[in-house]
């Protein structure tokens, strides 16, 4: 069995062990990227503030490796494992005043959509026996971007239910803000990506809503060059949807203690934490797929080499872009302060939404005039 066949089977075969393997891969990918995003967050914030960041955690077995052991320790690479274990082994309190079932359910509801969406995410393509296939964790289900939006927005239910179930005022306020924010920004987000679908919907494209089709339409110039306004609106909207600074209304630790997760501790808090990073990963991936050429290496330079090498390079390009985006999220967080709640609403309804509509109308007019 060649490497190519193995990869092909792993990516496409419906056999249960391959399916289980892919499922496991989702969890491993999401968890490790989320864990290392936390590390990135801690390290980058330290660099920005003139500090050093985590550089002490180590395991005797790793410390024993000469050179690399110290390097891993200095880079803080063992820290995420320690953080995760800490969450796992901490006492998991169940406060007396909470609504128990929903309290336990909320972190699961927050994380599940992130995991589900990730299974549908295409992040590369390869050709096998002259046919092109998409590298995704759930092959054959090219359900497109609508599904992504539908499912990933469900994550806010975790916040809403968690804030309500916690049965105290700060979580409640956080939950209310979270829901309001989602509604305000979802609209602008949807309208902004419509321009991309318009561009993809050529007569010979039978599924213009598919992410794969969108990526394939970007072999030349990336969409960000054709749709800069849409890209900007989408970028702002994903900051708001993932509740990241400057839009971290539901959490806003300075005025709401911790917002929706105030009453949560131990692993339940950890799940909320991973869910936030999961949504960052998905938001960034959608941006990359729709505006930054997906797995194409550079504009006008879709592939380098051929065969397995090219497809692996494509996947690598995707993950490099993803890493940059996660860094960008962190960079923005430690740069600017949080908006006030009324500012968030004003930006959403009075700026982003009209601009998105005008932008869409402009593209309508452009396509109508061009015929």
């Amino acid at each position, binding site marked *: 069995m060649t490497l190519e066949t193995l990869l092909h089977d792993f990516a496409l075969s419906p056999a249960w062990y391959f399916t289980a393997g892919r499922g496991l891969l989702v969890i491993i990918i999401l968890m490790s990227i989320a864990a290392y995003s936390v590390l990135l967050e801690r390290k980058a914030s330290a*660099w*920005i503030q003139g500090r*050093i960041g985590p550089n002490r955690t180590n395991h005797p077995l790793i410390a024993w490796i000469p050179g690399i052991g110290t390097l891993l320790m200095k880079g803080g690479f063992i820290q995420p494992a320690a953080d995760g274990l800490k969450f796992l082994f901490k006492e998991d309190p169940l406060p007396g005043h909470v609504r128990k079932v929903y309290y336990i359910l909320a972190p699961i509801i927050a994380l599940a959509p992130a995991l589900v969406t990730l299974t549908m995410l295409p992040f590369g393509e390869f050709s096998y026996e002259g046919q092109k296939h998409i590298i995704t964790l759930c092959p054959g289900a090219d359900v497109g971007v609508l599904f992504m939006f539908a499912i990933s927005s469900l994550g806010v239910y975790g916040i809403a239910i968690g804030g309500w179930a916690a049965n105290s005022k700060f979580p409640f306020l956080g939950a209310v803000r979270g829901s309001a924010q989602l509604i305000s920004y979802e609209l602008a987000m949807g309208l902004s990506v419509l321009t991309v679908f318009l561009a993809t919907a050529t007569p010979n494209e039978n599924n213009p809503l598919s992410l794969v089709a969108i990526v394939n339409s970007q072999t030349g110039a990336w969409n960000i060059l054709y749709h800069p306004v849409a890209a900007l609106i989408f970028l702002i909207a994903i900051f708001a949807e993932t509740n990241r600074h400057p839009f971290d209304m539901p959490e806003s630790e300075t005025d709401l203690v911790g917002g929706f997760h105030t009453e949560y501790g131990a692993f339940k808090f950890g799940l909320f934490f991973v869910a936030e990073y999961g949504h960052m990963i998905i938001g960034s991936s959608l941006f990359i797929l729709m505006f930054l050429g997906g797995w194409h290496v550079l504009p006008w330079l879709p592939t380098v080499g051929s065969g397995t090498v090219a497809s692996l390079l494509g996947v690598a390009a995707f993950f490099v872009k993803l890493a940059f985006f996660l860094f960008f999220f962190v*960079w923005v967080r*430690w740069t600017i302060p949080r908006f006030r709640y009324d500012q968030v609403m004003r930006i959403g309804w009075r700026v982003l939404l009209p601009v998105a509509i005008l932008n869409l109308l402009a593209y309508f007019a452009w396509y109508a005039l061009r015929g």
Partner: protein
Amino acid sequence: MLSADNPTMAIKIVERRPLSLAERTYLPQILAGLKVTWDNMVRPPVTLQYPDERPTIPQNYRGVPTLVRDPNGREKCVSCQLCEFVCPPKAIRITPGSITENAENAHVEKAPQEFEINMLRCIYCGLCQEVCPEEAIWLQTQYSMTGTSRDQMVNNKARLYELGGTLPDSHHKWDKKKAEAEKQADGHH
């Protein structure tokens, strides 16, 4: 008349302009902010990894108070107890003692028999150093003082001299006094 174009006036009136459209989108400021944080990111960190790295302590630092000897090795303290009385938190406890008749520095007459500074009380104010007429007590560069029991936090005389060492001193006040006294005694003969 106050105005911006009257150069004799030392007042500059700054024009209050409304925010431009670009400024109202927040974006230029956000980009400028990102530049600032980027510059910070590529700068070396300022954190000092104590205790692996130690700070450099300036010579005029006000650290743990110590007792010093003069260049001849004589203990300078004459147990006048001024420091004990001036010490605001009453950290100093001196047991005065006398110097035996036939000792080399018998002319100084007094020296502390025991000298204790309780570092759990000391507030590092430096008043003891300021009040001492003999320049015998000095707050030097030791900045870290730890112990595992209350007793260990009390510096006794031996420890104070060990910490203090010898400070260069060109006065030799007591030698001069001795010489003077001898001269006067000679004159009377």
